[in-house]
């Protein structure tokens, strides 16, 4: 009953250019997830290179890559629960768009982190809503009419009817995540911080998984619990080493904290921001060129040592 490899279906490996062209369309809702770890920056840059317009970007932590996509004119609406440059400062372009509507206004749907998590949970589980014990007394429902309440059909702790806030599902047209590795058909393995990536993929109509490396089927199958996203949920596998820079990939390279700090200054000045995009995004054919231009010395500074997990025994029938 063992199936041969060739019979298991076609490879989904394609270039970033192909994946973005095929699955990210003007006007689409695009979820880009990765909580500080494994931020799909290279995918955002390719969306900028291809000049996508009018995107609704869904992202818990709208950070540098979102600021860049906004600055490049790709984004008309943002759905997020944290719009800041990590703990390193501000997102200059995003603030200009919201504070001064300049050069153009940005529609913003504001949530809390768990509100976003629950929207992905509802989206991935095909639920009409997801309940959570936040938002009671907050001003957010007054500016976000999608935050609504439901009365529980069970009595509350005091025997009285109990109300709880709910959020609606989010079902992006495409979800993009970055991961350490996948096999050629999209069985995707992530370790370290795993965030909301799996649910974001299941919530999406299509999914692009960008990986540090494609590995042999046997590597994935030696540890099936490490597969957070099975192939049936994946439409494109893009091999893009160091594609999460300036964020990090646990076990592959460290976070570029200096760039996070620099971004607050770069993004504060529209001219400087334009120049940065011209040099590093429009001025590079693809992420490989971006990586090359940073240079091997630079990457050596982000290199990490080895700390291997101890193997576990899955066992085999004797």
């Amino acid at each position, binding site marked *: *009953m063992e199936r041969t490899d060739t019979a*298991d279906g076609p490879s989904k490996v394609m270039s970033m250019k192909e994946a973005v062209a095929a699955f990210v369309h003007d006007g689409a809702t695009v979820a880009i997830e990765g909580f500080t770890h494994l931020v799909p920056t290279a995918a955002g840059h390719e969306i900028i290179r291809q000049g996508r317009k009018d995107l609704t970007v869904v992202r818990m932590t709208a950070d540098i890559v979102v600021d860049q996509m906004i600055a490049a004119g790709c984004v008309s609406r943002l759905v997020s629960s944290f719009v800041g440059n990590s703990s390193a400062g501000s997102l200059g372009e995003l603030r200009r768009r919201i504070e001064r509507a300049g050069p153009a206004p940005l529609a913003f749907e504001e949530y809390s982190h768990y509100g976003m998590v629950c929207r992905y949970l509802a989206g*991935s589980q095909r639920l009409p809503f997801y309940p959570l014990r936040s938002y009671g007394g907050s001003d957010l429902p007054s500016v976000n009419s999608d935050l609504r309440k439901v009365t529980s059909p069970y009595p509350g702790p005091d025997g009285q009817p109990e109300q709880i806030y709910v959020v609606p599902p989010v079902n992006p047209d495409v979800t993009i995540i970055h991961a350490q590795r996948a096999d050629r058909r999209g069985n995707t393995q992530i370790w370290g911080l795993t965030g909301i990536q*799996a649910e974001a993929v299941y919530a999406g109509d299509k999914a692009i998984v960008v990986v540090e490396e494609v590995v042999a089927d046997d590597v994935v199958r030696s540890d*099936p619990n490490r*597969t957070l996203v*099975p192939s*049936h949920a994946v439409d494109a596998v893009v091999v893009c080493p160091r594609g999460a820079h300036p964020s990090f990939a646990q076990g592959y390279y460290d976070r570029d904290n200096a760039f996070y700090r620099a971004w607050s200054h770069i993004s504060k000045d529209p001219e400087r921001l334009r120049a940065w995009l011209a040099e590093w995004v429009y001025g590079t054919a693809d992420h490989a060129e971006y990586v090359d231009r940073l240079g091997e010395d630079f990457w050596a500074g982000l290199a990490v040592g080895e700390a291997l997990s101890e193997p576990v025994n*899955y*066992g085999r029938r004797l």
Partner: protein
Amino acid sequence: MTTTAPETVTSSELLSVVASRELASRRTVFAGIGLPTLATELAHLTVASQIEVVYESGVCGAHPSHLPETIADAVLISGAEAVLSMPALFGCVLQGGHIDVGFLGAAQIDRWGNLNTSVIGDWERPAVRLPGSGGAMEVMANSHEVFVVMRRHNPRSFTAELDFCTTPGPDRALAEGIRPLGAGVTRVITELGILARAGVGEELRLVAVHPGVTVDQVRAATGWDLKAAASVDTVPPPTEAELRLLREDVDPGRVYLR
């Protein structure tokens, strides 16, 4: 056990082959162990090369070293492509709408494809307490369609009135104002033939009989007034190629092929 000659096709072989054909071009199947496994593995070798079985235990893309004895058999886990938690399996994969065909069995089925796996008799004090839903209710509500394989075709199992409806098809759900994802039961494959319906609002109708079986025989074995298609086909018997694959490649140890 030795290979049976093609002319003596067992009931398991017949049902597996017929079910496998119905899986043509399907991608994801939610299946238990036994006949659904045989049908899916045979379909993989014949009419649905990219088919993947998802098991209720959470296993996706199994590559077992031996034929599994349960949906949770250790040989399904070692070497699998993914093993999911229950919330991911039931929430994201099944309720999320990723299953093309779910396989279910039942103690009783009615003309709309509603199923009983809870009790024979009254729920409070039943004559027979059956295992209950397991995940069947979720398979029915969330798969795009459901195939039922029942060896025995008799009026007690194919009943006008279920003793208890554990697992409702979409007609019953809609009557309550709940809109399910899929079509419910679209195929019932038995030792006598194939019943089919397209989805909501349609009764199961007899669409094919096995060679030598008459429409009247099937009607007599069915506890409701079974309607037949305008033209009832005869199920083409298993081909030599299908039987060879089933016996030599899918289940050479005859674990399920009884």
